[in-house]
C-alpha cells in the first residue's frame, strides 16, 4: 500500500542534514519519497514548475530557517505569494537548531506555519508529526 504521506520536500543548505533526514524519512513507514533542495529559491523554482511538468505536489515541507541568501522566513514570504492551487494542502514544518525556541515560536506567529521541531529528526519525532498532522485526516477519509 501507498505511504500515507507520499511526498516530502526537504529544504536545507547543508548536504549532510539532507542526507540524514532523507534516511530517517526512508526508514519510517508513514512517509514516502523525499526530495532535498539546497535553498529556498531552489524550492520555489520546483514548486512553481509543478503545474507545467505534472510533477507530484509535496504533502509536507521540512524547512530549515538558517540558510545563506534566502532564509526560511524569506522563503515563507515568497511561498505565501504562490498560487493557491500550488500551495493548498501542503503542510510546512520548520526545522531548526536554534537554542532559543521561544524566539522562533514568536516569529512563527507572523507566518502560516504548521509546526516547529528541533533538529535532528528522529523516528519518535516523525511518529508524532504523522499523528498530529496526518493521521486524523487520513483515518477519517479512508
Amino acid at each position, binding site marked *: 500500500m501507498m505511504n500515507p504521506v507520499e511526498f516530502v520536500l526537504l529544504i536545507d543548505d547543508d548536504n*549532510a542534514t539532507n*542526507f540524514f533526514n532523507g534516511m530517517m524519512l526512508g526508514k519510517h513507514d508513514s512517509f514516502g519519497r523525499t526530495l532535498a533542495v*539546497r535553498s529556498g529559491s531552489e524550492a520555489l523554482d520546483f514548486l512553481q514548475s509543478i503545474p507545467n511538468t505534472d510533477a507530484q505536489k509535496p504533502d509536507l515541507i521540512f524547512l530549515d530557517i538558517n540558510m*545563506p*541568501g534566502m532564509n526560511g522566513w524569506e522563503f515563507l514570504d515568497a511561498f505565501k505569494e504562490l498560487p493557491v492551487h500550488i500551495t493548498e494542502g501542503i503542510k510546512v514544518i520548520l526545522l531548526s537548531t536554534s537554542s532559543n525556541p521561544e524566539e522562533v515560536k514568536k516569529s512563527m506567529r507572523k507566518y502560516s506555519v504548521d509546526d516547529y521541531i528541533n533538529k535532528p529528526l528522529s523516528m519518535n519525532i516523525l511518529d508524532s508529526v504523522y499523528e498530529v498532522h496526518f493521521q486524523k485526516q487520513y483515518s477519517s477519509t479512508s
Partner: protein
Amino acid sequence: MLRSSFICSLLFGFFLLVGSVQAQESGNEQVKRVQRTIFIYNIAQQVTWPNASDFDTFSIGVLGPDRVAIDLQVMAQRRQIQGKPVEVVRFNKVKDVQGIQLLYVNRKFNYDINYVLSSLSGKNILLISEDYNYNTSMINMVNVGDSFEYEINKPLLLSTGFIVTPSLENYAVSSSEKWKELFQETQDDLAEEEKQVEAQQEIISERDKEIKEQEKALSQKDEIITSSKDLLTRQQDSILELASQNQLQLQKYEDKVLIEQELERTIANQVEFLRTQQETIDSTNTRIAGQLEILKAQEDEINEKQRILDAQDETISSQKKVNMLLLVIAGLLLLGALLIYRGYLQKRKLSDALAEKNSEFEMQAAELKQKNAELEQFAYIASHDLQEPLSTISSLIGILKEDYDHLFDDVAKQSLQFMDDSSLRMRELIQALLKHSKLGMNQDKTYVNVNTLLKDIQGDLTEKIKTTGAEIYVDDMPEVLASEVELRLVYQNLITNAIKFTKDDVVPEINISAEKTQDKAFWEFSVSDNGIGIPGAYRDRIFAIFQRLHSREEYEGTGIGLAHVKKIIDAHGGRIWVESTVGEGSTFFFTLPV
C-alpha cells in the same frame, strides 16, 4: 487768669494814655503793635541793669527795618524807663550794635539769634527777641491772639548780670512744649491775619468815608467860625453902637468889657477847637497812609509766599515725576534681573540634565565595554574548549576511514564522509570565531603606509590573482594610524571577496582608492569590483557573523570575513558600508580617522 489780668491792667493804663484816636483804630495789627511796645517798656522796667548808674538816657536798639522803632519812639514821648528818658536807635547790621541798654529783634528779619547774642556779649545789653525758639534768646516774646507771651532764659540773664523781678519771672512761659504750642498759635494767627487784611481793607474804605464825613463836619465848623466872625462883627457893631450911646451907657462899660472879654474867650476857644480838629484830621490821614503801606507790604508778603508755594508745588511735582521715573527704572531693572535669573535657572537645569545623561552614557559605555570583554572572553574559551572534542571526533573518523573502509557499505561510507566534512567545517568555524574574538584588541597602532601594505597583500595573493587573471588598480594611498596586522586583514578580505564573488566568465577588475572626507577628519577608502553585486535586502546582513548569501558549493568560506572587517573598522573608530548594483559590481567603503 492772673497773667491775663496783669496784662489787662497794663493795657488799660496805656489806653488811657493813647486816648480816643487809638480807640478809633481797633484793627488787630494796631492792637498788637501797641501791646508789643508796652510789653517791651514793661519788661525793661522790671529788669535791673548791672551798670544802671552808668547811663543817663535809656537807649533801645531795634534790628532791621522794623516799624516797632516808630512805636517805641512814640511811646518815649510819654514814658520813661528806669526813671530815665528813652531814645530809640535803629541798626541794620548786628556788628554796629552798641551804646544801648536794650535790643529788640524780630525773627521775621532773619537775624541769626546766636550771632546776635555773641555780639552782645559783655556790652550790658538786654536782648528781647520775638518768635525765636525756646531758650535761644534772653527774653523771647511770642504773639498769642491779641496779646503776647514771653519766656526768660534765666541762666543766660544771670550770667550776663541782669536781675529780673519775681513777677516778671513768674508770668514767663517755662517749658519748651508750651512755647511750641504758643508758637503754633501764632502760626494760626498769621493765617487769620491774612483774612483780616481783607477786613482791614474794608475798614480803610470805611475810614475814607469817615474822613469825608469829618471833612464835611470841618467845613460845617468853618461855616460856624465864619458865622461866629459875623456874629463878632455884629457884636462889635453893637459895641460901637453902645459906645456911641456915650455917657449913658458909659456906666455899663465895665459890663461891656466883661462881655467882650467873654466873647474873645469864646472865639479863642473855637479857634483852638478848629485847630485841634485839623490836627486830628492830619494825624488820621497819616495813619491811613501808614495803614495802606502796611497793607501793601502784607500783600507783597502774601504774593511772595504764594510764589514760594507755587515754586514748591512745582518742585514737588517735578520730584514726583523723577520718583515715578526712578520707580519705573527700578521696576525694569528688577524685571531684567528676574529674566536673567530665570534663564540661568533654565540653563542650569538643562546642563544638569545633560550632565546626568552624560554620566548615564558613560555608565552604559563602561557596561558595554565590560560586556564586550566578557563576550570576547567567552568566545575565546568556548572556541578553545570546543576544539578538543572536535579533534577527537576528527581523529576517530580518520581511523574509521583509513582502517575500516572495506567493511562499510555505500551509505555508511557516505555518512562517514559527511561526518568528516562536518567536523572539518566545525573546525573552520571555531577557528574563525576564535580569530574574531581576538580582533580589535590590538592596541599598538602605527602609521601604516597603505601603498606598501597593498603591495605586500598582492604578493601574498599572487597565486589567486594569476589563476583568475584579476586586474588590481591602486591609487596613491595615504599613511594612516592603525594596527597594521588588522588593516592588512581588512584589505585581504575585501580583495579576496572582490576576486571571489565574480561570475566564472568575468575577469575580476578591482579599483582601490582613498580620499579625505569633506570635514577632513577621516580618510574614506574604497574597494570596487565588477562582481555579482549584492541585492539591497542583504547589504546589512553580509557584515553579520557567519552570514552567507550563497551555498558553500557556489562560493566557499565560513561567512565571517566581512564580520572581521566590520569589527576591525569599528575598533578603529571608522565606519563601513557597501554600494552595489546586482550583476555589475559592488564598492565597499570604509573610513579611518586621519
